[in-house]
Every structure is written in structure tokens, then in C-alpha cells.
């Protein structure tokens, strides 16, 4: 049996300082390498909170989160940072590109931080941008790109260092349907061609329908875990 990419056991997370509420409760989950999983649920159901835990950006209040075999609660802040830098990729609803850098530099940054020489990191960044059909944007700054282009560059940044797991928090949430389609197609391609494990948060039914596995959260609990033999590639977005 292969080791899971991500595994959680009885994970809970309490948020808030003065007024506390339980955002997650008793989450048991196993995600194998190469899976494309979507997390869905209503607003406030705990999707993003779970994603941040799976990405070692946050620590659980209860239970255990294992990412690539490592219990994140036992790692130091520096070790969690290193884990994120080398093995995980992130895409957020807003692109979060650094305004001062070109697209290629933004994409090269995680590789450079992971120890790749700057020139080599930049070369690989350009390759990645070419691979994702946005090579023409390499020398542009974020302010010179459209929202869809920025999001695709953000995806390039998230995958250029060949992470084992890509965590995406509503990556199409701020895009129009055309750009949403482009981004989803890109993620599907990366999932199949690079055997990349993808965990994506979305509240978009159309987007959710394209994944082979769907986890539904409600009030911080995992209420459904649906697996489909084949997803619906190219299904239209509901928004």
C-alpha cells in the first residue's frame, strides 16, 4: 500500500481568541498521491481552514495532520517552512504575485529559495511558463497582466519547483468563465501529466464536478466523500 500524500486523523481546529468556535471537528481523511480532490461546502463550513492545515500553514487544535508522511505538529516553524518550500505548492483566490518582480522571477522564487541557482531557477521558470502556454508573459510584471494571466502565472509559481502536492483555494473564484476554464484545464493537465496531487477548495458546482473525488464539509465536519471513476472534463462552470 502506497503512503498517502496527506492523511488526517480526528483533526479539529478552534478559531477565535475572545469568541471561540470550532471550525473543524473530527476530520479523518486520506489522499493518495496523484489524486485530484475538491473540497466543497457552504461558506464557513471549514474548507479553507482544512486546506491551510493540509498545507502546513496552520496547526490543528486536535488530532493529527500528516503531509508526505510527516506529522506537521511535530515540525518546527523552520521545518514546516522548508516543507512548504520544497514539497507543496499554493494557489489562492487572488494571485498574490509580488508586484516588483516579473512573471519569470515570481515563478523562480520558490525554486531559488529551495536551493536552485538563480539562473537555473529563472530558466526553469521560463520553461514552466512555456509549458503552461504563457511564456509570452515571462518578462511582464503583474500590473501588466489580466486577472486570468496573473492566476496562471501563480499556478506556474506553485508547480515550477515540482511539488508533490498542490493546494488551491478557490483559484477560479475571481475569474470570468473563460479564464476559469483555462485555469481548470491547466490544473487537470498538471494532475495527469505530472501525477501531481491536487487539493482544491471550491464552492462552484461546475468546478467540483470535474474532480474524481469530492469531499463535502458542513459545519466543520466531513459529511461526504464521493469518488467517481471518471470526472467530467470540461464541464461548464455554474457561475
Amino acid at each position: 500500500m502506497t503512503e498517502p500524500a496527506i492523511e488526517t486523523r480526528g483533526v479539529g481546529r478552534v478559531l477565535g481568541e475572545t469568541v471561540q468556535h470550532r471550525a473543524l471537528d473530527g476530520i479523518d481523511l486520506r489522499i493518495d498521491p496523484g489524486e485530484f480532490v475538491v473540497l466543497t461546502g457552504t461558506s464557513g463550513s471549514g474548507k479553507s481552514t482544512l486546506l491551510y492545515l493540509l498545507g502546513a500553514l496552520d496547526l490543528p487544535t486536535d488530532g493529527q495532520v500528516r503531509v508526505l508522511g510527516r506529522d506537521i505538529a511535530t515540525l518546527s516553524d523552520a521545518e514546516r517552512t522548508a516543507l512548504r518550500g520544497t514539497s507543496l505548492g499554493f494557489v489562492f483566490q487572488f494571485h498574490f504575485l509580488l508586484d516588483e518582480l516579473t512573471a519569470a522571477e515570481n515563478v523562480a522564487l520558490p525554486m531559488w529559495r529551495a536551493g536552485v541557482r538563480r539562473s537555473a531557477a529563472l530558466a526553469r521558470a521560463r520553461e514552466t511558463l512555456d509549458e503552461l502556454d504563457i511564456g509570452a508573459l515571462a518578462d511582464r510584471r503583474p500590473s501588466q497582466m489580466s486577472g486570468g494571466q496573473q492566476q496562471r502565472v501563480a499556478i506556474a509559481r506553485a508547480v515550477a519547483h515540482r511539488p508533490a502536492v498542490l493546494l488551491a483555494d478557490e483559484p477560479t473564484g475571481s475569474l470570468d468563465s473563460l479564464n476559469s476554464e483555462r485555469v481548470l484545464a491547466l490544473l487537470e493537465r498538471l494532475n495527469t501529466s505530472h501525477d501531481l496531487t491536487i487539493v482544491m477548495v471550491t464552492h462552484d458546482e461546475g468546478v467540483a464536478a470535474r474532480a474524481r473525488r469530492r469531499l463535502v464539509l458542513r459545519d466543520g465536519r466531513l459529511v461526504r466523500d464521493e469518488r467517481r471513476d471518471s470526472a467530467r472534463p470540461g464541464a461548464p462552470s455554474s457561475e
Partner: protein
Amino acid sequence: MTGLRIALFLAVRQLVDRWKLNLAAVLGVALGVLTLIAMSGVMNGFQQEFLSQIVRVAPHVRVVASTPDVETSVIDRRHAGPAAIDVRNDRAAGRELRITAPSDVAAVLLEHPDVIAVCPGLEGRTLASAGNMDLGALLLGVDPAQQDRCTPLAGYVVEGEWAGLRMGRQVAAIGVGVSETLGIGVGDRIRLASVTGGVESLRVVAVIDTNVPALDDVRILVPLSMAQTVLGRPDIVAHLDVRVADPLDADRVADELATRVPWDVESWREANENMLSLFSLQNAIVAFVIAAILVVGGFGILAIQVMLVLQKHRDIAILRAIGLRRGDIVVCFLVQGALIAVTGALLGDLAGALLLDVLRTLPVSNGGVIVDSPGFLICEAPRFYVWGLVFGSLVGTGAGLVPALRAATVEPVDVLRGRIA
């Protein structure tokens, strides 16, 4: 090292990207450093000129009779008990400040290895006049043959000759200020009012310009015997001027000489204590002003960096998410503060050097009270530029530290959840 290189790269990019805002911070630091250099240059220039003149023309050490030597009157000396004798022109029993056996004392002083020369002297106030002009003057009686070894005034004679003081008793060397006030020069006569009521008429043989108005405006030098006559203190030597090998070591030599003679011994520093205290106060005020300006410059950096960190929360979050450590974030923002500070300090050094050049040429009167100069006296010591660079950089970097540490505390998850903007 990789994290450091990335932090430096990002810092430089952010600095360049916001160059207008950062330029304001750079100018703030530059202004502080410029002030440091300009004020240090002017203040030290003035002080050093004063001190170097004092060291050149004033005795390094002076042995002074400050404890009165009680003298008994003629009557008391001749009669043990009460007597009714009419004595005319007898001096009242007096208290005299004098160095007894000055030659013997000088010999003792000269035994000290650091003492080069010892000269006897007598100083007092007199009224000098020429024509219808008069002046309250400081009369200094000297031994013309020896005095130039203790206070080398011969080199400051601008008219006449120092050697003229050896041509009898009725001669005087006057300061250039005295010459101007009384309107006399070499060959003219100057009258000195004696304490006994008489008037001595002396021929001016030399005019001295030491560039120290405090001396040149009031001082008249005459042979010792003439000073004793004018001041009514026959045979009295009230002080011994001492020249030492190293004037900067005068305090130590003075302390050692004080153990060898029973009179007060004061170095040139003690003699000019009031002025040196004034300089210390002046330096403290200047240091306070400079510190205040540098701190204001530092606050400029602090304000800009705090604003930058607040605006960059999202960037910090993503940098942390993609693998930059807290230390990298600190370095990134700290380097920005440091680069602003160092650039400002270097710019301030450059501007300071240019300003000192301009000040040097400005025809500004300094009043001519302490040191006479046609413009600012500038001391351009390399240490001022080093101080500027060091203090400017430290203040600026220190100001950048707080926002940098604050940036490192930003948790990506707080930004992503929207808990902080």
C-alpha cells in the same frame, strides 16, 4: 545564504520600485549626517584654532604665587613694642604675592625632564595712553632674553623687532589691538600710569599679532623691571612661565611640578578652564542637535517601513507560504532600512564635504573676540565622515529593525483568512 540573497534581491527591488518615497527617507538621513559634519567641522575648527593658538603663544604651565607672603612694615621690623615715630612714605604692612628666590625655583623646575624653559614674569593692570586715547591694559613684565623660549612671541611680531625689548627699560611691545586702539606703532611713545601716581613713557619697539584678540587687544609687554616699577612691586616675580616638551601632556607635568615647589602650578588647560567648559557645553548642545536631527531621519525610515510592512502583508504571507523563513523576512525589511540609511549617510557625507568647502569661502565675521578670522574656521577631520556614516547607518538601521521584526510575525494564515489586511 540563499534566503539572505533572496531577501537582498527583494529588498533592492522594493527600494527601487518605491524610489520616490525612499528618496525622502534617504534625504532625511542625509540631512542629519550633513548637519553632523557641518556643525562638527565648524565647531571643531573654531575650538582647535583657539586651542592651537593658546598652546603656541601662552605658557604651557604657570607657577603662580597665590598664597600671600606677609610682609612686615619698617616700623614693626625696627620696634618690637608700640612706638610713636613719624615715618614718611612707609608702606603699610602688606600681603604680597611673590615667588621667592625665583632663580632657585626655576632651577628646580628645569630638573624635570619634560621642562624646556622657565621664564620669570609679573602681570598686572595698568592704564595705557597715547595722545588723547587711553586703554585699560594688561601689563606683562618679562625677561626679554628668556621669554621667547617660554612663549615664542618673536614669531608673531608684525612690526618692529622682539629684540628691541632688550634695548633698555623704557621700551614696550604691544598687541596689534592696542596699536589700533591707541593709534600708535613702532617708534611711537606709549604712556603707562604707575600705581604710585607717576607716568612712564615707553617707546614702542614691536607690534605683536598672535591672532588671539583676547591677548592682542589688551596686552603690553615690557621688561620685568619696568613692570615692577609701573605696578609698584619692586623686585617681585609673581609667576614663572614654563614651556614643556608636549603641550598635550601639560596637565601631568603640572601635577608633577606641583610636588616640587610650594606654589600653585596650573597647566594651560586649567588656565583656560572657563573657555574649555564653554566648549564642552557647546559640544554637548551640538551633539544633542545632531542626535535630534538623526533621530528625526530615523523616524522617517521607521514611518516608511511601517507603512511598507502594512502594505506588504499579502506579499509576506505568500513569501512565507512558498518557503521563506521568518529570518529571511526580517533581513528583507531590515536591509531596506539599512540601505536607505547607508545611502543617506553616504549622501550626507558628500553633501557635508561640499558644504564645508562652501563655508570655508564665506566671508562671515566671527566677532573676533576669541579667535580672529575672516570666515568660518573649518576642521575637516576624516573622523566626522566616519561618525556620519556610522551614526547615520545605525540610526536608520535601528529604525528599520522594528518594522522588520513586526513583518516577521505576520502569519500567512492570518492574512489568508483575512484576519489582517
